[in-house]
């Protein structure tokens, strides 16, 4: 009898505490390892500025991943984010070219992104369309609308945009960051606050755990389901703005496949694709891991950029395998 209960008891104690955090810890370890590998291999890699550049080059992806984290936590998926980023750059560029003031252009971008998200959310909630299909439609629509605005790339010459794009903030240790990084970090902070300290956030987790239970518990599942797509749409639009700061142009072929990067970052960041488990912080580290891989490949010089995709694929695989392992252990409880 003891022989039978002992290992059960042990495994319970071992896995109860960290199993929720295990993927995030693993992500962090992977980040430290990849970054460490870069630091050992290349001189000047382990500088504050390289880390800052990780944030600067991926600020838009961080914002995108935050929105995607909300969606995936409810067990959904948002394929439209890359296309919405492109549409946002396009709207920003076109409205600025038409002479709109910068603040109005920004508002227009954020409003249209959120509205698209609202539309997809309503389709998913009211019409019971699967998230995959609804956001696929959103993706087609957003990409197509880019080309309705213009087939060609439009450059952004607005002084306000240019200023935000090029101005840097000096941190102690002579490390420079852009405003985009500050915006991205603010988004992360707000997202963490909402997810962990508000009823909306906890309901996001509840819906991901079991939507039918959450509904029977009397929680506002409908509002949350629609809400996460609005949040994701808003984040995509914001990421699109950051991306237009980065590229200083609007183009319908910007950010092709970026939804995959966002999903990859969230998964590598330890969020369970079935929903209900994961952290925004994890997604940020996930983005940093992807960014580090890219940086290493560019430092290497001889490696072609398509290696990035292969490495991301391998990382995805590794983290999916890890998730399976955790689920197996939970089931054994």
């Amino acid at each position, binding site marked *: *009898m003891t022989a039978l209960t002992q290992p059960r008891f042990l495994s319970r104690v071992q896995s109860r505490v960290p199993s929720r955090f295990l993927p995030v810890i693993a992500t962090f370890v992977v980040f430290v390892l990849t970054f460490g590998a870069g630091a050992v291999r290349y001189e000047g890699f382990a500088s504050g500025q390289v880390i800052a550049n990780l944030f600067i080059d991926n600020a838009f992806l961080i914002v995108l991943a935050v929105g995607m984290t909300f969606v995936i936590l409810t067990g959904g998926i948002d394929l439209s984010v890359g296309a919405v980023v492109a549409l946002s750059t396009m709207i920003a560029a076109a409205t600025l070219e038409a002479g709109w003031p910068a603040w109005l252009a920004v508002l227009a971008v954020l409003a249209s992104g959120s509205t698209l998200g609202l539309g997809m959310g309503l389709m998913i909630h009211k019409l019971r369309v699967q998230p995959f299909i609804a956001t696929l439609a959103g993706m087609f629509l957003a990409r197509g609308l880019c080309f309705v605005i213009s087939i060609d790339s439009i450059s952004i010459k607005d002084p306000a945009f240019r200023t935000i794009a090029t101005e840097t903030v000096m941190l102690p240790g002579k490390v420079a960051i852009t405003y985009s990084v500050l915006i991205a970090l603010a988004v992360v902070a707000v997202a963490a606050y909402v997810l962990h*300290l*508000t009823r909306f956030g906890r309901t996001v*987790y509840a819906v991901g755990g*079991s939507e039918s239970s*959450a509904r*029977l*518990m*009397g929680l506002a599942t409908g509002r949350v389901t629609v809400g996460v797509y609005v949040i994701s749409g808003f984040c995509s639009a914001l990421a699109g703005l950051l991306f237009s700061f980065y590229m200083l142009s609007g183009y319908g072929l910007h950010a092709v496949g970026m939804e995959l990067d966002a999903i990859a970052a969230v998964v590598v960041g330890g969020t369970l694709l079935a929903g209900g488990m994961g952290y925004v912080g994890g997604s940020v580290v996930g983005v940093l891991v992807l960014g580090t891989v890219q940086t290493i490949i560019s430092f290497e010089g001889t490696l072609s950029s398509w290696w990035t995709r292969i490495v991301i694929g391998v990382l995805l695989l590794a983290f999916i395998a890890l998730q399976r392992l955790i689920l197996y252990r939970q089931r054994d*409880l």
Partner: protein
Amino acid sequence: MTESPPLVDMRGIHVEFPGVKALEDVDFRLFPGEVHALMGENGAGKSTLIKALTGVHPLEAGEIHLDGAPVSFPGPAQAQAAGISTVYQEVNLCTNLSVAENILLGREPRRFGVIDGRTMRARAATLLARMGLTIDPGSALGSHPIAVQQLVAIARAVAVDARVLILDEPTSSLDTDEVAELFRIIRVLRAEGVAVLFVTHFIEQVYEISDRVTVLRNGKLVGEYATSALSRIDLVSAMIGRELGVLEEVERRSERRSADPAPLLRAEGLGRAGAIAPFDLEIHAGEVVGLAGLLGSGRTELARLLFGADRADTGRVLMDGEPLRQRGGPRAALAKGIAFSSEDRKADGLVADLTVRDNMILAMQAARGWARQVPRRTADELVEKYLTELDIRPANPDAVVGTLSGGNQQKVLLARWLITRPRLLILDEPTRGIDVGAKAHIQKVVADLAADGMAVLFISAELEEVVRISDRIVVLRDRHKIAELSGSAAGVDEVMELIASGSTKVEALS
């Protein structure tokens, strides 16, 4: 007690689903400070009535009064806000959230607009203490056993100062102690003036806890009775509306079998960590072996190991003295003539969206492989045969199986296995959650099959049923096989005593 006005008064309730009249002109009253049992066979409309009350199903006709005022809830959230809380048979909570969140989410304490985690945990701890639970409110709900989760669900229900507490078959996953614990809590709530609506399949529990009983049959009201004034026989006949003759047919057979000394199946030291400790077992042709034990004693686990549904850590299974292929899984067992009708029809029994015909021939087809389709005529003949023999309704081979009632689904599942002509049939809770008539029918079928030479391993939570139907009884406790009883030693009292006894070292008493 009945002099005060009813708290809930439902009158002339009609509920319809496409093609089905689920409730027809049903009245129901619930008074404060009473435990009211709602009884009926499957398909009687108990759940529908509850869901009509809580706003899950819209009414075609009828009205609901709460405290004298007419109400109509658009959904369970609004019903809950009005003080009507429901605890369902399956625990409807979120296992990925903490215990405290599961109890209080939706009305969580806040400070400056932010969830106040500390107060929330403290308040949850108080509520849990009232239910006699001392678990950590901060722990994930999923880390606790189902029974605890069930009590947490009740804690959530009473946390709202519920005036009406609906318990929809809350005891089906609890063992005796846990049921006693639940009843203690129900009594506390009753004393506080809460009206408790209690749905159960167990007649004993009705007499133990309830003050009044309402019986439904086929979506219609049979009557409302004071429990103390209603005899068990009257209750049962009100529920099924016919004599219990069929039950008597399945008389317990004495040990008429000992002819064939070579066992059909032999398990040697079969075991799996965390599921069941290594055990030996022999089953002979033409014999019904019953598995008795409480929920969680390893009944289902034992059956799944025999069938290869789960992989064994130790030991082996032999059919006719030949070992089954290691790691062969269900297919190896099926090839040797073992069939396993699982406990959970919906999850791992039927293929809900396929027709009755497809479901029935599925196992036969799987055995033939996809390339050799079962000829349409053979399939039709077999399906027709079992539709008649098992009295499946509707007797339509093209009906989608998900639309059938629980008892008929069970029969379809049984037919699937009978079509494969197994030599050993493992039935895990074939009579759970189905009505009395179908139950008796299935018991009779089992007895007939054994008489024809089939070996049957019969698992049921109802001890009386196991005792009545089995030639030999294997008793399990705490994931150990503790005894084998046969003949006069295999009575309800004997088995009960073994299950309740403390020592694990009971030798086989045959």
